[in-house]
């Protein structure tokens, strides 16, 4: 039996590129939807802010193209996460290589595998997230930069 950590490696290794047209379409739609999102450095409007290894990562959940508060993520419903990675006042040039979520107390993760689309200027969108149970979920972001790989964590409580 694989260990819990091995069963939940970062989603980046499982990241599947979509076909060209769907990625292009998503990028266009994402660019429009995210037009108010993503200036560096991130602000409160960009969602929760995480800092590590000189990187600043902001994330916010999105449903139907509209951002919602992290505390308002509904249970058992698909949503997306928009991510901005900054290095000071400029986009960092780093890549969001993975995003996954687990329930540490339950010892399992999501039933769905998010797909990450790069939107440009250090912005990313992860599609296909779902928190299917109430309780504490731990988000794990893997960011690849010139300095190497960084992992940033944040907690969300779903009611």
């Amino acid at each position, binding site marked *: *039996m694989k260990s819990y950590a091995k069963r939940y490696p970062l989603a980046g290794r499982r990241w599947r590129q979509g076909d060209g047209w769907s990625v292009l379409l998503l990028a266009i739609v994402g660019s429009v939807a995210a037009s108010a999102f993503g200036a560096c450095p991130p602000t409160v409007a960009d969602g929760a802010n995480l800092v590590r290894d000189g990187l600043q990562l902001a994330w916010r959940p999105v449903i139907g193209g509209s951002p919602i508060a992290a505390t308002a993520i509904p249970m058992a419903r698909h949503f997306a996460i928009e991510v901005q990675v900054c290095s000071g006042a400029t986009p960092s040039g780093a890549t969001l290589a993975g995003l996954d979520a687990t329930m540490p107390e339950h010892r*399992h993760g999501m*039933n769905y595998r998010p797909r990450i689309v790069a939107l440009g200027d250090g912005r990313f969108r992860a599609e296909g997230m779902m928190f299917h*149970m109430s309780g504490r979920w731990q988000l794990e972001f893997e960011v690849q930069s010139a300095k190497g790989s960084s992992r940033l964590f944040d907690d969300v409580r779903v009611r």
Partner: protein
Amino acid sequence: MTFGFAERIARLVFLGAGLALLSGGPAAAVPIEFTDEEIARIASHGPWPPDWRGDPGNRASGNPAAIWLGQSLFFDARLSANGRVSCAACHRPRSGFQDGRLTARGLARGTRNTPGLLNVRHQRWFGWDGGHDSLWSASLRPILDPREMGGSAARGARLLKSSPSLACHYREAFGKPPSADDPDFLPNLAKAIAAWQETLVSPPTPFDRFREALADKDAAAAASYPQAARRGLRHFLGRGQCATCHAGPLFSNGEFGDIGVPFFVRPAGVDPGRQGGIKRLLSSPYNLLGAYNDDATRGNAVGTRHLRPEHRNFGEFKVPTLRNLTLTAPYMHNGSLASLRDVVRHYSELDEDRLHSDGERILKPLMLSAGEIDDLVAFLETLSPPAPPQPPLPPPGALPCPARR
């Protein structure tokens, strides 16, 4: 912290219990108060029925001709190989569209309990293993399965062509005559049957009225909700942690879990549950990633596109809705538990050795007292309507088709 309204309700219930004593009724119980947090969590199980805007993957969704056709086909045994098994043979309207048997019995005996169909339009995955991602594809499988109805495109086309009314409604719904050679024919039959099943919505229950009374701060209306059900509701939300999975208006998160119900199948074999369901779904030409999904944006295929098969899926089965349970005994994927009391006892005496080694970690035996079991059963019973709902009538006969079948 208690809520002022809850206190008023508690006083009312206490008064009611006192009156019951005076009149020789049941003994007074400790009044039940709900905290602000509990009231918010109770509110999350409604409103009923939830908003619903049709199935974008089914062009026949909401179409009166398709609903009429679907209802006719649902009750028509001529779709089956021996002409004696209709959808309704297992999905009986008076039983919440269930059959009361441990496992289904079509042309052969099945290995799983027949799921009820009330409120089926609100589901994300269909079948105990979620082997289907649309109601219409789930409706096609039993028609073709040799163990259930053993039908075929040719048999279906013959049936429709033999009936001017059925053929006419098919043309009205899909814009072309029925033909076994048309690759859309079988999916269209299933889409019509699904369109009818979408109309099967159960009425509000005593719980829904209590929930609304809490929301409206109507103490008088709330007072009619039984004390035992209130205590059971508190166990459901609190110690039992039932709402962790049995969430929302349907009392289900629509996903899958292993709760220690054996997955062995007689005479020999195992039911892989969700693991097999994912394989079946992804290999099906009728899944939402395929050509028969009528949603050109594929926006309804997010779940299928992002599925993550896991080792723990083996032996997982769908978290069922808790609505209308009084109509749909026996329970669990194999029908192994005869009554709601047996279901609550299952969780009370949960055998952790049966749980998947890398499955859910919060499942523990609840060790409930006899009174707590009674209370949980009383609560679950309030999630069903007092009387079985009548099947909806077919759309009015304003269609340009003959009404005779």
